[in-house]
């Protein structure tokens, strides 16, 4: 079970979107999410669709890959669509016993389902096109101004990097402990969900012992290399704004203006 896990959503590709500065991608994604809540009719979604389609095409992430990723959220989309459709009052289109579909309900259901799909696809483009380490670098840079308010920006980024680095090691460790305990008669595969989850409890002690041993060794290695936090520390890969980042800012501004114009004038 444990070996089949895909770590992260990142889709490796050499595209313009992949090469964009992660700080810019984070900011643009946040702006995009906020912009979705300013859209009041389907006209606005045409602009959003055009923007998402263009970015997806430029990112070279296959459409099949994107749609496959939507699978886990189909349930939530159907759930949202059905309840919105049935629970909105208005002009009745179709009625059977207590089930009533209204014109407003149908409009609302399609509108909300589309917002959900655009929200998820659009914001997933960030994680699909940005390596987790780059994402961490970007977050660290963006959080730096908050350092003066006591936010440990560097420490947070360091923790994220260590956590990401050790996930495969910890998964392997979990696998090893599970097999060792199974060889001694532990049962992780029968019973209900709660019973199976409870069976995992004894697994956590050796897992934590192993994990904290790793932490101890890592801290010692860092101390031995004179690690002293973010102050004066240089980076191997320094984030730099390039020409196409500036172009992306212009495109994002055009998108925002189009959304605003659609809302005001149409």
């Amino acid at each position, binding site marked *: 079970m444990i070996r089949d896990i895909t770590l992260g959503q990142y889709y490796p590709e050499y595209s313009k979107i992949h090469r964009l500065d992660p700080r810019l991608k984070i900011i643009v994604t946040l702006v995009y*999410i906020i912009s979705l809540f300013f859209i009041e009719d389907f006209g606005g979604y045409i602009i959003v669709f055009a923007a998402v389609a263009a970015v997806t095409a430029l990112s070279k992430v296959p459409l099949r890959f994107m749609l496959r990723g939507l699978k886990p959220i189909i349930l939530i989309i159907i759930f949202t669509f059905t309840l919105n459709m049935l629970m909105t009052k208005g002009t009745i289109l179709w009625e059977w016993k207590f089930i009533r579909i209204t014109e407003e309900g149908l409009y609302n259901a399609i509108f909300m389902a589309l917002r959900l799909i655009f929200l998820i696809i659009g914001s997933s483009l960030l994680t699909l096109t940005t390596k987790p380490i780059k994402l961490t670098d970007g977050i660290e840079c963006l959080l730096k101004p908050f350092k003066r308010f006591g936010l440990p920006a560097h420490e947070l980024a360091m923790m994220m990097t260590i956590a990401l680095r050790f996930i495969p090691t910890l998964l392997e460790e979990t696998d090893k402990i599970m097999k060792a305990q199974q060889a001694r008669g532990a049962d992780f595969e029968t019973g209900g969900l709660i019973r199976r989850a409870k069976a995992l409890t004894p697994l956590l002690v050796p897992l934590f012992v192993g994990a904290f041993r790793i932490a101890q060794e890592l801290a010692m290695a860092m101390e031995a290399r004179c690690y002293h936090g973010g102050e004066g520390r240089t980076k191997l890969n320094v984030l730099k704004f390039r020409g196409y980042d500036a172009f992306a800012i212009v495109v994002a501004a055009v998108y925002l203006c189009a959304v605003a114009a659609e809302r005001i004038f149409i």
Partner: protein
Amino acid sequence: MNREKKKLSLRFWVQAAVIGGVYAALTMALAPISYGPIQVRVSEALTILPYFTPAAIPGLFVGCFVANTISFYGVPDMVFGSLATLAGAFLSYRLRARPWLVPLPPIVVNGAVIGAMLYFVYGVPPSLPIDMAWVALGECLSCCALGYPLLKYLKRHEGIFRL
């Protein structure tokens, strides 16, 4: 003295990072039940860890953030999910004098924050209280049915958390 403090601080952050790694690894190992509105995130049982060490507060925050980067619920889940975990972990730490109350904050905070996120951001009907209750129920399963027994179990091995 200062050197000793710095060393302790580094160990604190590295321990926090590894706790985050364990949280993320468990969430990913048990996907897809770890994600979505109807989720039982077994790793949420780890929200009792602030009882043993304050390093679990930033650790769980980072773990949740990293785990949510692979969720297809996008950026809102990464931001609100991890902030809710951070608030829950902090409150659990403050309640450590009463161990039976430790699993409670993650249930309340996640129910409120994630429920509100599902309702306002993702537009999941029917109503805000029902969305909140729904999330809190899943969280209750992880924190009470798994978290509290884990707390009692780990109490016997408290030494492993010493820095």
